[in-house]
């Protein structure tokens, strides 16, 4: 019986290692893309801010926009319906691959964050590159004239 258990565990370890090699997706920002020379066709997640004014809607639900991290920008092409939370000037994560022309062809656009914060990867990446400003943090928040939560909170 212990032998059987070991066999199952060995198979499971094999499956996990195999899957980890083939099916994980790395996260990059436009600057990392520029530095790393990611080959066309390799899938990754691209995160950053949607550059204001870059969103262009074409025919048949095709859209293009640019993702920026403050130092570099990368054009993104997507076909489909953008999520409710997609806005210019706000954080976004897209999954897909570069084509030969250097355009990021996204097949998924994620906006899995609510309005009060940015996708965590994006926030961290921007902080690391020193482009983190309070503006970004506030961009998703309420107008400044509203009382901020917890201010003057009494215990």
């Amino acid at each position: 019986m212990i032998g059987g258990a070991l066999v199952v565990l060995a198979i499971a370890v094999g499956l996990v290692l195999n899957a980890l090699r083939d099916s994980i997706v790395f996260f990059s920002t436009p600057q990392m893309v520029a530095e790393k020379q990611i080959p066309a066709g390799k899938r990754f997640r691209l995160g950053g801010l949607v550059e204001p004014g870059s969103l262009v809607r074409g025919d048949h639900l095709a859209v293009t926009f640019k993702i920026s991290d403050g130092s570099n920008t990368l054009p993104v092409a997507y076909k489909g319906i953008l999520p409710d939370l997609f806005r210019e000037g706000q954080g976004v994560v897209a999954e897909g691959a570069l084509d030969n022309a250097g355009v990021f062809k996204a097949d998924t656009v994620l906006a899995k964050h609510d309005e009060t914060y940015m996708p965590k990867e994006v926030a961290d990446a921007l902080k690391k590159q020193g482009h983190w400003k309070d503006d970004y943090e506030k961009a998703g928040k309420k107008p400044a004239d509203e009382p901020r939560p917890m201010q003057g909170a009494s215990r």
Partner: protein
Amino acid sequence: MIAEIGHYALVLALALALVQSTVPMVGARLHDPVLMNVARSTALAQLLFVGLSFLALVLLYVTSDFSVANVYENSHSLKPLIYKITGVWGNHEGSMLLWVSILALFGGLVAIFGRNLPLTLRANALAVQGWVATAFYLFILLTSNPFLRLANPPMEGRDLNPVLQDPGLAIHPPMLYLGYVGFSISFSFAIAALIEGRIDAAWARWVRPWTLVAWMFLTLGIAMGSYWAYYELGWGGWWFWDPVENASLMPWLAGTALLHSAVVMEKRNALKVWTVLLAILTFSLSLLGTFLVRSGVLTSVHAFATDPTRGVFILMILCIFIGGSLSLYAWRASSLKQGGLFAPISREGALVLNNLLLTTACATVFIGTLYPLGLEVLTGERISVGAPFFNLTFAPLFVPLLLALPFGPLLAWKRGDLLGAAQRLYAAGITALVAVAVLWAWVRGGSAFAPLAIGLAVFVIVGSLTDIAERSMLFRMPLGIALRRARGLPRAAWGTMFAHLGVGAALIGIVCESTWNTELISTLKPGDVAKIAGYELKLDDLGQRQGPNFGEMVARFTVSESGKVIGTMTPSKRSFAARAMSTTEAALLSRGFSQLYISLGDTAASGAIAVRIYHKPMVLLIWLGPLLMAFGGLLSLSDRRLRVGAPKPARAARALQAAE
């Protein structure tokens, strides 16, 4: 005033929890029944005060008292009453209060129904509950107090996140927490058993009903969450392998294993050490789930909380409880006597295989969920582990599990007859092969995967029916006698059947939906017709409508099948002024177990609107499966052999079982 009462009641509950976590344990050491009985009264009093505290928060929400920070941030005076109430747990502080309320509820239930438990076991178990409660009361009071006041009360609240303004919020979190927290009972009993150094079959009989209750609620909670995501997020997906979903799946897998190993322990007095370990692991995974969701450590829809002090606090709770319980286990487990030998081919052996595969599957989910975190800490590289990983690891482990599933109930305890079981499963095997052949012919040349997977599901379904048919001697005795025998079967046998049936049903739904799902994305103008899977959907008009705290754009579709109108669908897009957010309200139309699904996108300048239309075959089976599983759990729970805290000998019931 109400906020202060709520706050004060919570502090009192903390004081009671401190008493409950020490006094009964001292009593158990000194064999002092008076001290031990303190556990009962404190557990009940704790329930009273936490209940009061929770009620206070509900009242604050209902009366829209915006001088309380938590209400201001998550409520709005125009919000419908139901969302004012459910908004209580639609945020971090309130949901933690719900967590401790449910913990106190379970503590109170043990105090009430645990009359015939051995006094020391009850005292120790309730003391462990007291520790858990203390940790979480401190967490709430120190880092996430829902009763904090604002110095300058605003006139209007900021409204609840619109995605959460849905009946799903009324059901999903309470169910999920009933599951998570319910496993604290088996944890407390396991720790109590380790402290006493004594554990027997009666222990399993007391623990099993509690585990079953928790498991049922967790099953329903996960299924409800999945259905909610399906219709609310507007992409028609029902499971994303999102870390937050995995956080609830892991305790479910471990809990399912625990449920099965407790059977072995109760009937055969075997696998004691393993069962205790599973009880600890299951609740540890529940705590881990709470940590993952509540600390905001992961990027996810659910992680509203992004405050590091909270994360560190929960991490400490996690380390103390998981580390402490596992150390205690390592130290004391050898004192638990092993008993009940069995051959590898036996009911016990089958249940061991079940446990092995379930826990391994759980481990793969664990790795897939935590590997990105670990990698980021070590190398700073960010990766995401998504569906492909889990399809390659989790799914292959479920194949042998499902193949072996119908054999389990047909094998005898102690030493089984694999050949005999296989013979009895002839019919199931043949039905499954016929299903594979028919489907293969029908899809012609498509991938072989779907017919095979459905064949497996059919095998599971017919296999679980076979068990009941065999036991009632259907087809071998006159129908009347067989029916009478079937009625006489223990309810637990019927429960097993329904639960296993649910597994097969869910698998069929999952395979059909993911293989034959059709999607159509296009832009439509009023009067346009979209065709999908034999249905014609005509966009009649676009209109505006005003809700209580939102405005919405509604599209009206007339759906017809071969020229006959079968219904209308009205998907809409709501915009909530208070948070400047919009949500997509998908429209669903069920045809049998299949569904048509429409969600709206943006409007173009020309007046056309982007729509996403899906036809999802057999999709309802995905959630019908878990419903059947939970129903099976309920039937088992109503079995008198399992009646909560009634350790009666099972002799009378066993006489009714078919001789095997």
